[in-house]
């Protein structure tokens, strides 16, 4: 197990290096620079030229790249041209937000999706099955931002059940330790802060969960159907075991293997969704920030982000594999 971990982490290095090169060449193709993004309509040629010089953007690419690499090794991602703050700080404030959002979304998807998929499979062809399947299909087909807008319009603006934007109520000055609002609340004992953060998370999380939910429902359904046909389920039945045991130990335990992988692979799509939901609920997460960074040609942020995300991705897949090897003994051997 440890060797797996190490191997993966080592694999990460060349990936990241290659990525960073590609990235740099790529970014260099972006027209325009941060200068006029900073100055707005007041920009004049001379100004722009001077700022670019100040930012060292007038030097050739390889020089910039080398500088960048040097800094990377000092674990310094540089400074955002938009906010004039270290990229680390910007990430520190925003990544937790998005992670929190994604986790809640995934939880919703799992807690709702797996039972739904299971029932659908058990009652194949029944109304519940049709409902679950068509529901999940529609879930995929509604543009996330549209869903988010509607949820917000109804539950935040009309019914005022949930806040319409942000991560925390105004003046709810929660002490910030980890950046995970909910967690912080629990750590510092400011429970109201936790709840408030939760409260802010729910609507965006629901919007964000639409696609993962759909995926999980269909994955679960498919693989439960498959497992139900397996001999060992028949064996279990032949032993006259309780429905509960058959379902839990023999059907689900096997059926969930592929679902685990699916969840792992969802991270990418989650972030895409986050870009949209965050902008609808002006939720101060990384997705929205990166989008504006692309517009503002905020090179340091983009580079930092992509390296970061690649790392996250690899790590998540690693976790998935570990989880996998925990539930599936066959994997442990080889």
């Amino acid at each position, binding site marked *: 197990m440890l060797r797996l971990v190490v191997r993966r982490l080592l694999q990460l290095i060349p990936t990241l290096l290659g990525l960073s090169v590609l990235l740099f060449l790529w970014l260099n193709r972006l*027209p*325009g*620079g*941060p200068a*006029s*993004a900073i*100055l707005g*309509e*007041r*920009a004049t*040629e001379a*100004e*722009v*030229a*001077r700022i670019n010089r*100040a*930012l*060292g953007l007038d030097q050739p690419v390889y020089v910039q790249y080398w*500088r*960048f690499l040097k800094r990377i090794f000092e674990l310094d991602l*540089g*400074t*955002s*041209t938009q*906010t*004039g*703050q270290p990229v680390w700080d910007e990430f520190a*404030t*925003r990544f937790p937000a998005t992670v929190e959002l994604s986790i809640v979304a995934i*939880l919703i998807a*799992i807690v709702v999706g*797996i*039972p739904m998929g*299971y029932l659908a499979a058990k009652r194949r062809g029944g109304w519940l099955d049709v409902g679950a399947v068509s529901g999940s299909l529609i879930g995929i087909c509604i543009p996330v931002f549209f869903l988010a807008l509607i949820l917000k*319009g109804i539950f*935040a*603006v009309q019914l*005022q059940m949930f*806040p*319409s*934007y*942000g*991560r925390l109520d*105004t*003046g709810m*000055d929660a002490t910030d330790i980890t*950046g995970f609002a909910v967690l912080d609340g629990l750590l510092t004992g400011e429970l109201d802060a936790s*709840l408030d953060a939760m*409260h802010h998370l*729910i609507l965006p999380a629901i919007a964000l969960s639409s696609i993962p939910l759909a995926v999980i429902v269909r994955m679960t359904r498919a693989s439960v159907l498959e497992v139900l046909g397996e001999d060992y389920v028949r064996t279990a039945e032949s032993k006259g075991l309780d429905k*509960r045991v058959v379902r*839990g130990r023999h059907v*689900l335990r096997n059926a969930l293997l592929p679902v685990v992988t699916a969840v792992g692979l969802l991270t990418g799509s989650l972030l895409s969704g986050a870009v949209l939901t965050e902008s*609808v609920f*002006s939720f*101060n997460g990384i997705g*929205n920030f990166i989008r504006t960074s692309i*517009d*503002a040609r905020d*090179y340091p942020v983009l580079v930092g982000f992509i390296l970061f995300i690649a790392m996250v991705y690899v790590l998540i897949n690693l976790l998935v594999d570990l989880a996998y090897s925990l539930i599936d003994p066959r994997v442990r051997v080889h």
Partner: protein
Amino acid sequence: MRIFKSGAVRAITAAVAVGLIATGCASERGKDGDKGGDKDTFVFAGAGDPGSLDPALASDGETFRVTRQAFEALLEHESGGSKLVGGLAEKWSSDPAGKVWTFNLRKGVKFHDGEAFNAAAVCANYDHWFNWKGTYQSSAVSYYWQTIMGGFAKNEDKEAPKPNYKSCTAKDENTAVIEVNEPSANLPGGFSLQALAIHSPKALKEYAKQDATAKGDAITYPKYSQEAGTVAGTGPYKITKWNKGNKEVTLERFDDYWGEKAKVKNLVFRTIDTEAGRRQALQAGDIDGYDLVAPADVKTLEKEGYEVPTRDVFNIFYVGMTQSKNPALKKLEVRQAISHAIDREGIVKTQLPEGGKAATQFMPDTVAGFSDKVKTYPFDTNKAKELLKKAGEEKLKIEFCYPTEVTRPYMPAPQDMFERMKADLEKAGITVVPKAMKWAPDYLDATEAGSCALHMLGWTGDFNDGYNFIGTWFAGPDKQWGFDDKKVFDSVNAASKVTDPAGRVEAYKKANETIMEYVPGVPISASPPAIAFAKNVNPPKVSPLTQENFAEVSFK
């Protein structure tokens, strides 16, 4: 959930369930708290985060809106107007040459950190800025200082403007004298800018210790400007907290304020980047007011009983022409034809909030120097056709750029405005090639580099002086316009040299007339930016310069 018994997931289910219920209750509490009559926190939503808590380092409205509540400049504009009045200086005067400016300072003013305000403090500020080094000299950081006062004591960049600031001397406790090398149209208006607001000398010493660094690829703002605590001004509020994660700046009433104290104890600025988002937050009762209201929402909100005052117009929206890009534009008839072809009134009627005005020249009628004798180009498609014919350009094909992902006070809905004008031009037989670009940086780069034959831009005035408008475009050759016309440039520059106010206004009028004879572009409209407040709020006097003073705000 009965069908689901696997331990872990049961736990999760429970957790989420609890979470939902609990938060439900939490929300109840929250809402009740808000509805309580004795409300002591006013929440206002802007469209973007402030860049820094030190206005001297900023050039954007979002920053100034926040700092303006905590910092005051020597001069201010009358509440709700654009007339220059005393700020920290009760009276001011200049010598005939407009080179020596004398300020009689207000007495008994205290800074938030307890320091006393006096002439020495004023000079400390001006000298602090004048002696800026390194990255501070980048125009990204010290844009306004450089526009008003030119360069620095030691310019590190040969292309930086040469310093116009000469000295500041404290004649006595309450008299400060600021000298400049050349008279400038930017004075005295410049003294009113937030960027030149007065900080506590104690704070300045702190500032000086920290440097803005340009590390390789970006400008890092100094620490003091990124967190509350160090910065200290004289305003009715003092900045107490900046929670970046929550996009929330908190200010607290300053009880030793020299003037009328703020009515609401806590003032909070938050960021909601979309128009719809801000409106919905207001409707949902999450905020008490917001700026940059979409015209479409003004009526809606008014109907629903919200306070939606609109400001006087103090901006101009125009269609720029880049003659170097499309030679046809060099012909006067073509420029006139385009001016005739566009239905300004239509845009005003359907796109701008009430109070919007069709423009006749490159400044709104609220600016001193506005002339009612300029040549006008009323909407007349046939006339346009004739002119094109006369110019031999019946088959004119022209590229028209417009920005996306942006709204500006002067152009609330760029794309819609563009589509209308496109339709107009096509009626007049001009083939329009549309080109959409992201506002920043693509569009701004393109227009500023003169690569868009036709484009839409605008300007919001910093202070009431004509040069602040026409000066920015027509003081000399500029890639954006791509023409070189001595008559136009001279008229503008001449005006800026006139030192006596009345005479200068007249000169601006002349300049406007000359410009509109030449029609370098088509002034379209001036749009009054609306600002919205909750039903239970007594709004502040709204200012054409968007310089609202939130100390005036109170709850009904």
